[in-house]
């Protein structure tokens, strides 16, 4: 990991020196030693970049933020899960892929705060970054990737199965309890690289499409709607769950839909460059009859 960090700093400094990038979006340290996003614009500042097991944030969210775009051509540090969000952004024409230099880190797994393993790592699709411009780290250092069947046996999937197995009223009670804590701060949306809408449907007020109130009704409407908008798109990076101040594991809903996309349509979001959006396209081999 230390050697990866060294290589990352060298790479970033070189990109900036050669003006292949104007800004390197990466991880650095706050004054209190916490890992935070940093935006490096001078080669000499590349030393501020860090790479360690606390680098859990998904920095891809910054590629579409206007304040960051203003800094010029970006290079970005990504983990393998984050890299899939870049593929989706490019597939959905939100970024020009050749205008972003993607530095993929071979990842052994990350922690969220207090050393808890990140919920995203429990469902890891792969430790070696795909579809990036440069890989930092050695493939042999990466833990072995889980097969689809093995992934289904992890705690996260087991939790989904447990919830799915509950009788409907108990399942509803579970989500009521979860959503009752939602204050509608939209940290989930704002941390999500794929929630890039300029005007979110939750912000539409002429007329309001869904209640803005943090009431149970409003919270169900918001969280379910967001999950559906991410169906077949979510790359399961877990940024929403990590950002939620109330500790609602939103990824459980998104992952349920991602599972459906994988099971029903063999669609794993962000793994295929040029893939058409799952919702919004159809094929004659689709299972439902109404499409034919």
């Amino acid at each position: 990991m230390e050697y990866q960090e060294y290589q990352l700093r060298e790479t970033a400094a070189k990109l900036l020196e050669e003006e292949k990038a104007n800004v390197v979006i990466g991880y650095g340290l706050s004054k209190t030693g916490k890992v935070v996003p940093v935006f490096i614009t001078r080669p000499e500042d590349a030393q501020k970049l860090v790479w360690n097991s606390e680098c859990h944030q998904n920095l891809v969210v910054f590629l579409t933020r206007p304040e960051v775009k203003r800094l010029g051509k970006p290079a970005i540090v990504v983990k393998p899960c984050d890299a899939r969000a870049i593929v989706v952004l490019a597939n959905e024409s939100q970024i020009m892929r050749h205008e972003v230099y993607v530095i993929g880190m071979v990842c052994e797994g990350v922690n969220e705060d207090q050393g808890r393993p990140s919920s995203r790592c429990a469902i890891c699709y792969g430790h070696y970054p795909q579809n990036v411009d440069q890989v930092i780290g050695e493939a042999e250092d990466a833990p072995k990737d889980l097969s689809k069947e093995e992934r289904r046996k992890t705690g996260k999937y087991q939790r989904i199965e447990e919830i799915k197995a509950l009788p409907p009223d108990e399942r509803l009670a579970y989500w009521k309890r979860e959503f009752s804590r939602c204050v509608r701060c939209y940290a989930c949306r704002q941390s999500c690289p794929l929630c890039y809408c300029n005007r979110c449907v939750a912000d539409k007020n002429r007329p309001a499409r869904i209640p803005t109130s943090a009431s149970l009704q409003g919270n169900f409407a918001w969280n379910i709607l967001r999950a559906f908008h991410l169906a077949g798109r979510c790359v399961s990076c877990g940024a929403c769950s990590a950002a939620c101040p109330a500790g609602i594991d939103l990824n459980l809903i998104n992952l349920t839909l991602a599972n459906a996309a994988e099971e029903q349509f063999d669609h794993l979001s962000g793994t295929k460059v040029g893939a058409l959006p799952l919702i919004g396209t159809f094929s004659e081999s689709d299972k439902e009859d109404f499409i034919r």
Partner: protein
Amino acid sequence: MSRIISLDDLRQIAADFIRAGGLAVAPVPFDNDRVFFQYIDEEGAGKIVLSGWLKAANTIKDFFFPRHEKLFSYERIHNDVVLADAPEFGKPQLLFGCRPCEAASLPILDKVFGWDYQDRFYQSRRRMTTVVTVACHKSDDDCFCSSVGGSPENTEGSDAILYNLADGTFEVRPVTERGEQLFEGKTSESTKTGKACPPPPVRFDASKCKTWMDGHFDSPFWNEHALRCVGCGACTYLCPTCHCFDIVDEGSYAKGNRVKNWDFCQSALFTLHASGHNPRPDQGARQRQRLMHKFSIYPDKFGKILCTGCGNCTRHCPTVLGVKPFLEAIEEQED
């Protein structure tokens, strides 16, 4: 001599309060390792936890200035519109176990909700609520009460303050008559006295930061330091003093409610004009607004800082931003 009370007896006070027809709010653990302030029932009083945690995952303002509150209902009957005011908050409320930095937000909010317009929704809740604070036993890297005039045993906004004696008992120090009444006859005498943790180090000079902010409205500093802000409302919604709200109608043409919902200044939509113009066009301007409101605008108007140093804005920020990192950076500015 001091007055002490056991945790069980404290829980009993909450249970008795509920039995007498009041509402009680207290920190209760949730299934993940977080503690939330929530309304409890008599049985729930047994689950109150007053130690082992530093800050809850929500704020006490939810019980004075709820995230969602009905103002009135409307209904069209024939050609008439019938309005019905929401009933006034009418029950005594006991708020148990908050931190001094949370209770200290109440005198600050009092000014906002009782300045020119008297907000009966806030004021009735405030009038009906007894606040019992627990002095801090530790601080973390995000705490900065000592930089904004607070301390781990600040009694502003509290009716009584408790000190954890770490043996299953608490020292009780009533602050107001109401606090005295709550504990009357419930405590026993002791020679033990409680002690709060030392205050966190002073992180910045608030008045120096105010002077810098006032003179650097158009500085590129704001956008440079706001780059990692993702524009969510975690900082404001977890802040005990942030008090912005939006008023919306919910329902149909025929029938519905006018409601008051929290709103947050870090959203681009917050200041978006109907014309499409946005006077705060970028995240730097939005962060500047939040910090200047807290450290310049409100102090100019009310003579107090609109911040109690609780650190929730940093603690709950997806990218660890918030007041403290920003003001530390301001203090490092040379001109």
